[in-house]
């Protein structure tokens, strides 16, 4: 049997979900035997999202143009997309900027009002991705197959989600251990 092609993606989040992924400790060795890590900020150094991915864990909300582009691309090339953690599921802390209105008031607040020396708005087309008006949960921009809440989801929860998938089964996302937010 061909190995399962696993990817992990980091959008607008703090990387805490990926840290929690690494907290699976020695089970990572077992996981590595069963999957091929084809794209991941903590597991490979590729810049282009590959074709024919079986499972992808997506951490973070969708906050800027780069996030959106990668989200659309990975949906196109992945069988099972998992919203990985509260930022992907709810927009969570990155989404708190939405309460200020659109992107402009947020940038003005951060770079002009709070800028100490030579305050200016960042603008570098093609280098710094533009902010989207609102930070959105992943399922607002692409269809998502499995939702794994948590800030971060515990290593046990991540393992309990991945294990059935390795056997070709669907994980059961019910109960406090699997779906409690926060």
């Amino acid at each position, binding site marked *: 049997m061909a190995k399962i092609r696993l990817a992990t993606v980091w959008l607008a989040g703090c990387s805490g979900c990926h840290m929690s992924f690494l907290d699976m400790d020695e089970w990572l060795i077992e996981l590595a035997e069963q999957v091929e890590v084809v794209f991941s900020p903590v597991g490979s150094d590729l810049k282009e999202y590959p074709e024919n991915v079986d499972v992808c864990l997506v951490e973070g909300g969708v906050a800027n143009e780069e996030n959106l582009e990668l989200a659309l691309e990975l949906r196109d090339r992945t069988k099972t997309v998992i*919203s990985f953690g*509260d930022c992907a*599921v*709810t*927009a*969570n*802390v990155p*989404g*708190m900027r*939405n*309460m200020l*209105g659109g992107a402009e008031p947020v940038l003005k607040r951060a770079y002009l009002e709070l800028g100490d020396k030579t305050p200016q708005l960042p603008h570098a087309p093609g280098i710094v991705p533009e902010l989207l008006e*609102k930070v959105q*949960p992943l*399922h*607002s921009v692409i269809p*998502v197959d499995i*939702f*794994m*809440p948590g*800030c971060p989801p515990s290593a046990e929860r991540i393992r309990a989600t991945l294990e059935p998938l390795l056997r070709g089964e669907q994980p059961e*996302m*019910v*109960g*406090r251990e*699997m*779906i*409690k*937010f*926060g």
Partner: protein
Amino acid sequence: MSVVTLKINDQELATETGKTILEAAQDAGIRIPTLCHLDGITDVGACRLCLIELKGGRKLLPACVTEVAEGMEVETHTEKLQDYRRMIVELLFSEGNHVCAICVANENCELQDVAVEVGMDHTRFRYRFPDRHIDLSHPQFGIDHNRCILCTRCVRVCDEIEGAHVWDVAQRGAAEYIVSGLSQPWGEVDACTACGKCVDACPTGSIFRKGTTTAEKVGDRDKLQFLVTARQERQWTR
């Protein structure tokens, strides 16, 4: 006391006249999820989580404000009810700004618990991200309207148990919010006795003690029930 017999989920029950369906179910150990209900204060049927189906009736009825009647046949967990309950909780999360990860009530929040109970792993509705304020004018307490679900438990506990009526409901619909005094900052409301009953009554992290940080709010809801029993039955021990 006259006795009423009814069926809940095909279980035969005998209870007292005047009891609500929710009380009858609780006595029989049948759990119906609630958010705006709090033992010891008047029920208002605000959250709609306790909706039940009645055999022969087309309308869904809130169990907390529907009295038992002879021969009633109640269903509490049909597929339709479970669908609606999950939808209600999803709507509550989409309506306010509920960021569990940084909330004082994380791990000790009735909204968070009920989300698990109804099996909500995400909301199908767009988040509104409303612009709501936080009032920290009171020397001991704060109210964060972002986390408020408008259950009005604070309003009722303050009015009915403390007798101060500091809280009320202002505006209507999406603009509705909990207001203190005559729309004054909480700290300027003379009627407030700083008893803290609203802190214990609040199901979320909306009303909290100052200095409480993430996941540190531990509500003492039994205290309110104790006070009611103490006054009504003169039992002063817990």
